[in-house]
C-alpha cells in the first residue's frame, strides 16, 4: 500500500510539471486548451512511468533540494563563463592539447550520471565521448593534474543524493 502511494505520488508530480509547462506555453486559460492539455499530460505521464523510472518528486518538491539546485546553478554559471573565455582564447591563438580522460562519478543513481554528463557536455571545452560506469571525456586543453569535472561531482552529489 505504501509503495502504491509512493508510485502514484510520483506520477501525480510528473503530471503537474508537464501540465504547468503546457499552461505556460499556451498562456491562456480557455476551457478548451485546459481540457486538451489535461488529457495530453495524463497520457505523457503514464507513458513516462511505464517505460522509465523518473522520480521528479524527489528533486523538485523539496525546499532543501531547491536551495542546492540554486547553488549548483551559480557554480555552473561561473564555470561556464570561465571555460567560454578559455576556449575563445584557444581558438584565436590555436595552441591546443587534446586528451581523453576518465572520470569516476561519485553517484549511486542514474540521475546523477545524467546530470554530470549533461553538465560536462554543456560547458565548452569538454565533451563526454563514451560511458561504461566511468565517464570518458574529451577535453580541449589538458594539462597534467587538471581537475576536469569542475567541482560538478562535489556539488551535484548534494543535489541528487
Amino acid at each position, binding site marked *: 500500500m505504501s509503495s502504491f502511494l509512493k508510485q502514484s505520488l510520483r506520477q501525480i508530480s510528473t503530471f503537474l510539471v508537464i501540465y504547468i509547462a503546457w499552461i505556460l506555453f499556451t498562456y491562456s486559460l480557455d476551457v478548451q486548451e485546459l481540457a486538451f492539455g489535461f488529457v495530453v499530460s495524463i497520457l505523457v505521464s503514464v507513458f513516462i512511468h511505464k517505460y522509465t523510472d523518473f522520480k521528479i518528486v524527489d528533486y523538485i518538491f523539496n525546499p532543501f533540494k531547491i536551495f542546492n539546485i540554486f547553488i549548483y546553478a551559480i557554480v555552473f554559471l561561473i564555470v561556464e563563463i570561465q571555460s567560454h573565455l578559455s*576556449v575563445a582564447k584557444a581558438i584565436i591563438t590555436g595552441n591546443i592539447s587534446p586528451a581523453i580522460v576518465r572520470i569516476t562519478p561519485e553517484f549511486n543513481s542514474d540521475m546523477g550520471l545524467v546530470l554530470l554528463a549533461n553538465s560536462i557536455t554543456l560547458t*565548452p571545452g569538454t565533451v563526454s565521448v563514451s560511458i561504461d560506469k566511468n565517464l*570518458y571525456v574529451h577535453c*580541449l586543453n589538458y594539462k597534467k593534474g587538471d581537475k576536469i569535472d569542475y567541482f560538478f561531482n562535489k556539488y551535484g552529489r548534494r543535489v541528487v543524493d
Partner: protein
Amino acid sequence: MISEVLIYIAAISAFIGAIGLFRFKDCYTRIHAATMISVGGVMLALIVLAIETVGTVYSVKAILIVIFFALTNPVSSHAIVNCAHRMGIEPKNLTRDDLGHNKLKGEV
C-alpha cells in the same frame, strides 16, 4: 544599451565558434566550437530577448526555450561524438588517452 552590448557579444561569440569549426583539425575538437556557438550565441540571445520583453508572454516562452535548449543540446552533441567513436574515427594529437582507441577498434 546593455542589451545591445549583449547582442554584439552573442554575435561575436558565434563568429569565434565558426572560426574554430573551420580551423580545427578533427571532429572531436570541432564539437567544442559547436558548443560555444550554441551556448554563447543562441542561449545568450534568448536571454537578451527575455530581458527585453519582460512581463509578457514571450519572456516566459524564451526562458522555457532556454531550459529546453540546455536539456537537449548535450544529448545531440553526445550522440554525434559517440557515433564518431563507434565508427572508428580516431582523434588526432592526443596527449593522453584513457579510452585506448587502437585497442577498442575491433570489438565495439
